[in-house]
C-alpha cells in the first residue's frame, strides 16, 4: 500500500503519541526512583541513590519479592506440566467433549479476576479450611496456576498445530520407541514454546494482584500487594518507585525473549 506524504506524517505522529502515552509514565517511574525530592516535584531538584539504598534494606519489600518469586515459580511449574498435557490431549487426540474441555480450560483467563478471586476464596474456605489448610502461599499458587495453565496451554497448542503430525510418525517409522520420539523429536520442537509459555505465565503470576488479594492469607504478601499497600504511605512512596523501576527492568527482558521465541517459525532454534 502506498501512502501520501501527509498520511505518513499523520500516522507517524499518532503512533509516536500513542507510544509516548504508554512509555513516558514508565520513564517517569524510573526517573522518580532517583528524584531527590520526596514528593516527586518536577523538574527533579537533584539525583539521589537514597531510595535505592532504602529499598535494598526494606525487609517488607524483600520478603514480598521472595513470596512473589516462589508463587510465580510454583504456579509456572504446575502450568507447564498441566498445560502441556492438556494441549496434547486436545490437539493430538480425538475424544468426546474435546471442544468443551478446551473451552473450559481457556475460560479462567477470560473471566474477570475479581470473579475468579471470589470463587476461589469461597472454595478454599469451604474445602481447605476444614482439613486444616489455611490461606497462604499454597492458595496463592493454586489461584495463579488457574490462569497460568491457560498461557502454557495456548502456547503449546499453537506450536502443536504447527508441528506436522507426520514428524512423530516418521520418528516411530524409523524405529524410535515412544520415549525416544519424545526426546529426539517432539520435545526439541516444543522447547521454545514451553520456554515462552513459561516466561509469560511467570510474568502474569508475578504482577497479579486481584486473585492474589482474595487467595492470600493475612501474612502472605506478594510484591504487587506490598506495593499497593505502601503506595498510600507518604514516607514509603519513594521506595515503591524503586521497586516499580526494578520490576520494569525485570519484566522487559523476559517479555522480549518470549516474543522472539514465539515468532520463531522454525521452532527449533533453542
Amino acid at each position, binding site marked *: 500500500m502506498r501512502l501520501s506524504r501527509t498520511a505518513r506524517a499523520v500516522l507517524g505522529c499518532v503512533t509516536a503519541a500513542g507510544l509516548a502515552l504508554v512509555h513516558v509514565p514508565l520513564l517517569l517511574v524510573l526517573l522518580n526512583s532517583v528524584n531527590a525530592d520526596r514528593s516527586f516535584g518536577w523538574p527533579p531538584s537533584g539525583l539521589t541513590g537514597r531510595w535505592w539504598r532504602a529499598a535494598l534494606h526494606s525487609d517488607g519489600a524483600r520478603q514480598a519479592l521472595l513470596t512473589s518469586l516462589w508463587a510465580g515459580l510454583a504456579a509456572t511449574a504446575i502450568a507447564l506440566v498441566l498445560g502441556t498435557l492438556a494441549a496434547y490431549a486436545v490437539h493430538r487426540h480425538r475424544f468426546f467433549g474435546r471442544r468443551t474441555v478446551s473451552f473450559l480450560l481457556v475460560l479462567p483467563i477470560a473471566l474477570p479476576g475479581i470473579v475468579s478471586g471470589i470463587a476461589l476464596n469461597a472454595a478454599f474456605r469451604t474445602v481447605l479450611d476444614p482439613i486444616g489448610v489455611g490461606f497462604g502461599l499454597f492458595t496463592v499458587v493454586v489461584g495463579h496456576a488457574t490462569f497460568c495453565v491457560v498461557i502454557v496451554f495456548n502456547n503449546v497448542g499453537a506450536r502443536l498445530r504447527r508441528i*506436522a503430525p*507426520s*514428524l512423530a*510418525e*516418521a*520418528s*516411530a*517409522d*524409523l*524405529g*524410535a*520407541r*515412544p520415549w*525416544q520420539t519424545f526426546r*529426539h*523429536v517432539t520435545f*526439541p*520442537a516444543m522447547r521454545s514454546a514451553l520456554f515462552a509459555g513459561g516466561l509469560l505465565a511467570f510474568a502474569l503470576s508475578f504482577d497479579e494482584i486481584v486473585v492474589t488479594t482474595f487467595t492470600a492469607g493475612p501474612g502472605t504478601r506478594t510484591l504487587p500487594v506490598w506495593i499497593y499497600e505502601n503506595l498510600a504511605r507518604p514516607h514509603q512512596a519513594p521506595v515503591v518507585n524503586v521497586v516499580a523501576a526494578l520490576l520494569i527492568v525485570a519484566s522487559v527482558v523476559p517479555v522480549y525473549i518470549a516474543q522472539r521465541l514465539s515468532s520463531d517459525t*522454525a*521452532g*527449533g532454534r533453542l
Partner: protein
Amino acid sequence: MAQTETSSRTRTTTTAAAVRLEAVTKDFGAVRAVDAVDLTVHEGEFFSLLGPSGSGKTTLLRLVAGFERPTGGRIELAGHDVTAMPPNRRDVHTVFQDYALFPHMSVEQNVAYALTVRGVRKAERLARARDALTTVRLDGFASRRPAELSGGQRQRVALARALVDRPAVLLLDEPLGALDLALRQEMQAELKELQRTTGITFLLVTHDQEEALTMSDRLAVVRDGRIEQTGPPVEVYEHPATAFVAGFVGTTNLLRGEAAVRVVGRPGTYSIRPERILLADPAGPADPAGPAAAPAGSPAGGRRTVTGRVTDVVHAGAHTRFTVTLPHGDRLTVHRQNLTGLPESARPGGEIRLSWDERDAFPVPS
C-alpha cells in the same frame, strides 16, 4: 537352463511375500476407507497403488506402516503377522508426502536417525549416513538444515533417511507430488534405479497414472477402498478389468448402451484407446501416421469404420488430440502422433473417417 528353472522355483516356494494383506478393512467412524482388501507384494518388486484421492490408497500404506490399526483382517510382512505391531518394530520405512524431515536436525542427523535410535555407535552411523547421502547424490549437504534445501533435495534426504538401514520394504506416499514436472521425471528414473540397485521392495502410492505405469513392476488400481485390478502396467493398460480402470489408467473412449451399438456395432460396454483410432479423409487412403500394426485393410482383424465431424483440435506437444462428433452426437477422442501426412480434413469442422481394428474395441465389465 534347467538348473536356473529349479532354483527360481525353489525361490518362489520358500520366499514369503514382502507384504501380504488378507481381507484388510479399515473404518473411520462410519466411513469405510479400506474394504476387505487382499494384496500381495513380492520381494524386490516395485509395486504401485494407483487411485484417485480419497480412494483409500494412502490408508492402505499407513496400515502397512503401522500408523493405523485395521478394523479387520491380517497384515503380514515377510511372512510374519504384524497386524498388532507398532510402527517402530516393523522393518518398513516411509517416505512421507511432506517428507517429514526433522527441522531441528541437520541433514546428516536426519539421515542417521534410524541408526541413532537403535544405538549404533556415532562413527559408524555417520559413515553410513554419508553413504546413504552419496546414494542419493547429496554429498556435501550433510551439515545443512532441511529448511536450507530445495524441494528436490529434501525429497532426496527423505529417501536417504528411509534407506539408511536398508528396510525390507520402502513405502512411498506420493513422494513426487510436490515437485515440478522436469524434476518429477528425473526422480522417477532415479527411484526406479534406486529400487533396482538396492533390491528393496518399493510400495508406492500415487494418483498419477503415468508415474505408476512407468515405474512399477506391478500395480493395483484402487477405488472406494477396494482393489479394481492388479497386474503389470502393460496388462492393466491394455486389458482394463473394469470401466473405471479403463478411464483412470490412460485416457479412453468408453462406449456403453446405445452408443456401443451405434459405434462399435455390438451391445455392451467397450473401451477404445484414442491412439488406436486412425484418421483418414473420407475418400482418401488410410493415415500413414497411424499404428503400423493395424494398417487399413490388414488381414489381422476386421476394421470398423465410422465418419464424423472434427469438433476440436488440441496440439499437445508430441501428439494432437482430435475430438470427433459422430452423427448421433457420440464423441470419440483420437490421439495422433505429430508426424507428417495429416489428412486434409483433420481440422475443425472437417468431415473425417475414423477406423480401428475391431479387437481394439475391447469389452469391459461395467
